[in-house]
């Protein structure tokens, strides 16, 4: 013998939902869950079942009982709220509040500020360099020689000089292709020891598509002292990634090459989307590449007028768009610069 009771749940659900007051709800409750109710009737059928069916049937009916009890409780709460408290005496406090209009900072500003704040707490000070840079600061001072393939990674917009300009330089001007030239400027203005963080716009002649933009943002950081070590760089960056991406974030350093650091490293963090299990964002590797770093190359210290036998430093740089895209799940870099309010209001 088998007993089908699936219709009971459906029926009860409809009736409970359409119930408009407490009394009617109580009548329904007795009908289903009372001592002589329908659920109890089902229970009474257990002894008549084949022994192997009893266990599953009992569990099913018990489940039904619990579900119905939940439905009654929910409906009761709803009826209490709307009818008794808000529809009777006093004001209808379910009317929407008059929300003051809140503005929004651009998601890139939010991420950039967060990065700067984290490093601020670690003792770094914010410095800004110009976007219109000299070729020397953007390249030669950073150990990127002319006519070297290492320049390929830094395709650059060159800027023609208007007839009169206050820079009074005969040097070729360009739109900086990275924030690293700010290292040179900062170290010329401020003698070591120092620790700076430089946020700003940078430019590279990349055709615009979902993952490229000719204008984007970077944050550069560097510290120079008499006893700065490579291990300090790891220490500072683990503090940063765990504040930025969560305390469980893992970090790894991979050897890499940048002309302005030696040794150099690429930094990956454990993918916070799949927690390292492998997903499309981390290309199934479990790791996300987020920044490049290393010990400041002696050539760079010398370019800024400091003796590399006395001073040592580390430097790192990251792309703000990339971090914002990862953090917020944004899949198209162009969204940042279209300025659609329906985009901006989500952050």
């Amino acid at each position, binding site marked *: 013998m088998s007993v089908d009771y699936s219709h009971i749940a459906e029926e009860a659900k409809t009736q409970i939902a359409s119930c408009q007051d407490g009394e009617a709800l109580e009548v329904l409750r007795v009908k289903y869950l009372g001592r002589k109710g329908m659920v109890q009737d089902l229970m009474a059928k257990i002894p008549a079942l084949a022994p192997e069916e009893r266990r599953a049937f009992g569990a099913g009916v018990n489940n039904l009982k619990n579900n119905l009890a939940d439905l009654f409780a929910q409906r009761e709460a709803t009826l209490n709220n709307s009818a008794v408290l808000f529809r009777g005496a006093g004001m209808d406090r379910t009317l929407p509040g008059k929300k003051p*209009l809140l503005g929004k*900072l651009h998601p890139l500003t939010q991420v950039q500020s967060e990065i700067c704040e984290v490093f601020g707490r670690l003792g770094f000070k914010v410095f800004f360099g110009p976007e219109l840079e000299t070729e020397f600061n953007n390249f030669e001072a950073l150990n990127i020689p002319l006519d070297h393939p290492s320049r390929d990674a830094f395709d650059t917009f060159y800027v023609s000089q208007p007839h009169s*300009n206050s820079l009074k330089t005969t040097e070729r001007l360009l739109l900086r292709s990275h924030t690293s030239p700010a290292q040179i400027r900062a170290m010329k203005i401020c003698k070591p020891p120092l620790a700076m963080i430089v946020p700003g716009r940078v430019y590279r002649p990349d055709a615009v598509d979902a993952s490229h933009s000719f204008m984007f943002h970077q944050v550069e950081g560097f510290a120079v002292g008499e006893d700065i*070590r490579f291990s*300090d760089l790891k220490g500072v960056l683990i503090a940063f990634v765990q504040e930025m991406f969560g305390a469980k974030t893992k970090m790894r350093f991979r050897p890499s*090459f940048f002309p302005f650091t030696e040794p150099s490293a690429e930094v990956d963090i454990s993918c916070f989307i799949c927690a390292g299990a492998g997903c499309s964002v981390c290309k199934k590797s479990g790791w996300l590449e987020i920044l490049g770093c290393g010990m400041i190359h002696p050539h760079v210290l010398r370019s800024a007028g400091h003796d590399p036998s006395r001073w040592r430093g580390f430097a790192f740089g990251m792309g703000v768009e990339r971090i914002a895209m990862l953090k917020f799940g944004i899949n198209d870099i162009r969204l940042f610069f279209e300025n659609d309010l329906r985009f901006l209001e989500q952050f």
Partner: protein
Amino acid sequence: MKASYSWIREFVDIKMSPQKLGDALSMAGLSVASLEEIDGDFVYDIEVTSNRPDWLSIRGIAREVAAIAGAKLKKEAVRKTHRPKNRAQDRLSIRIDDKKGCSLYCGNLIVGVKVGPSPEWLKKRLLVLGLRPVNSVVDITNYCLMEYGQPLHAFDLDRIPQASLIVRRARSGEKIVLIDGLEKALSPQVLVIADSDRPIAAAGLMGGQATEVNAQTKNVLLESACFDPVTVRHGTRVLGVVSDSSYRFERGVDLVGVKEAMARATEMICELCNGTLVVSKQAGAGKAGNKRKITVSLKEVRDVLSIDISTLQAKGILEKLGFGTRLKAKDILEVIVPSFRKDVKIPEDLTEEIARIYGYDRIPLTAPSIKPFSFAASQTQLCEFRLKGLLAGMGLKEIITYSLGSDEDYRKTSLEVAADAYALENPLSQDYRILRTTVLPGLLAGVAFNINHNNKNGEVFEISRVYTKNNEEIRLGIALFGSRRAAWLKESCVYTLFDLKGILEALLDEFQVSAYVLKDASDWKFALVGTACHVLVNDQIIARFGQVSEEVKRNWGIKAKEDIFVAEVLVDILAASALSKKTFHGIATTPSIVRDISMLVPDSVSFSRIEELIGEKARGYVQRLALAERYQGIEVPKAHSGLTLSIEYSAGQRTLTDEEINPVHQRVLDSLSEELGLKLR
């Protein structure tokens, strides 16, 4: 650079799985972008950084694998060294005219070659790496290119008159058809290999079609050379040609490898194509010079890496990578750099080598001792942060628009492109050519995008740089359009010019800039007639604002009828005019007296005139003057408006009495009606 597992294992005996090896390579700096199983082999796609041309070869990668795995590197690839027969009838002459462009040129003359398809094993080696087999001779040059990282080229000797080669700069007007079939015009920037009268190859880039090896070729001239990286780089730019060869020459080839690869390719051609080496010629010194020696302090290495590596361990790593070492004193190592490691120049480079193989992941985490230092951000920068917070607090959304714009953007905005504007020499397109001198076009682009995407109401701002002859300035742009989001029960919130002006006033108040004056800016074509205004502080423009003209709206493709109000603030001037110090002025303990005045004002009298007059007549008493109401309508005559002002009088710390203020207020009333002819109600 693609490399296959089986080929690597030909040079180093490792037991690591292909997957494990891939991870190990990545963690040593040979970033593996992908690992694919192809035809029973495993192929790594390795992103080789520009400092490591030695990794652009299977042998170079194998050397690295040996160091990582602590395995032995098998050195010999060439089994049989072929010596030229030097027969009397064979002739080959090589001359280098441009010694800077080419430091070494080796030519091997191999005769009696049978060109055909390569054996299957060779084809497969190339195919898994994505190289297309052509014929046995060409395949062998490609094979050796991959194995040694040394580009080789084979000419059909019978198509070179007198077998005489000259390495020289191309002459203007000379042309060549390259192997890919494209004709290229040459210039003296391009280094070529020429026969007695014409170029037959673009040196280091690509061979010419006329001397290409094909199935009919009998005699081969094999080239292995060292071309100057910068010269080759210029060549790629001038001709628009990038090849596996140019890629390696640009990064620098190893002089020792020039001869090794030549020996290997010669051996293969002799064996696989039945050739006989008859002449071996060399031009150029081709001396690698003295090997570079670097003295490195292991104490320094341990200190900067915070690791406790033994001298023996450090020596072991360097030697496995091909460096020679000699312990000069305790912890002082003299390192001899091999010819294939031109990137290693300073002790720090060796620190990286040691750290890389030791394992970056084994370096501990430490906290730096950042000593206090003094550095203050500029006022403008502080101002920028504050402004962003204030404006977001007022409900505005921050936008970021491109710093680059077009002449067309300015035309659409009815603005002139400033004569001193900077422009790009190499723009991506004319749309992004000019470094902006104002944020207005960007702001309008943002507004237009929104209105045209059915976001008809909004309030936005941008703070960013503009580039003028004074270098970089920070500007704030504000735009209000349509109406403010209405809360229920609220009447119209359609934006007006005064919403915008109010925001500016609030900002000026917050920065304690009180001495500002307004000046009509009718010459500002961008704005609707009669709405534009400059705000001046000490005769300097600090801001301008107005309503966007219909024409400008049309130009930007905005068809919606909603009004747009726009302001631009010169943040540097705001920062310079701001009072950074805030001072507490006490709280008045004496009561003030409030008097309201209602009056009918003709359009010819401005509010500021009334304000001024009241200030003058009640000098010392006016604490606050507020416009309580302004109305126009049926009960107000044309070209007039009804104003109700609320004046709060006080006498500072004295108690102000009616007796004292009455005559003052009367003076105000009298002057309003007598001097300005206003009708008081």
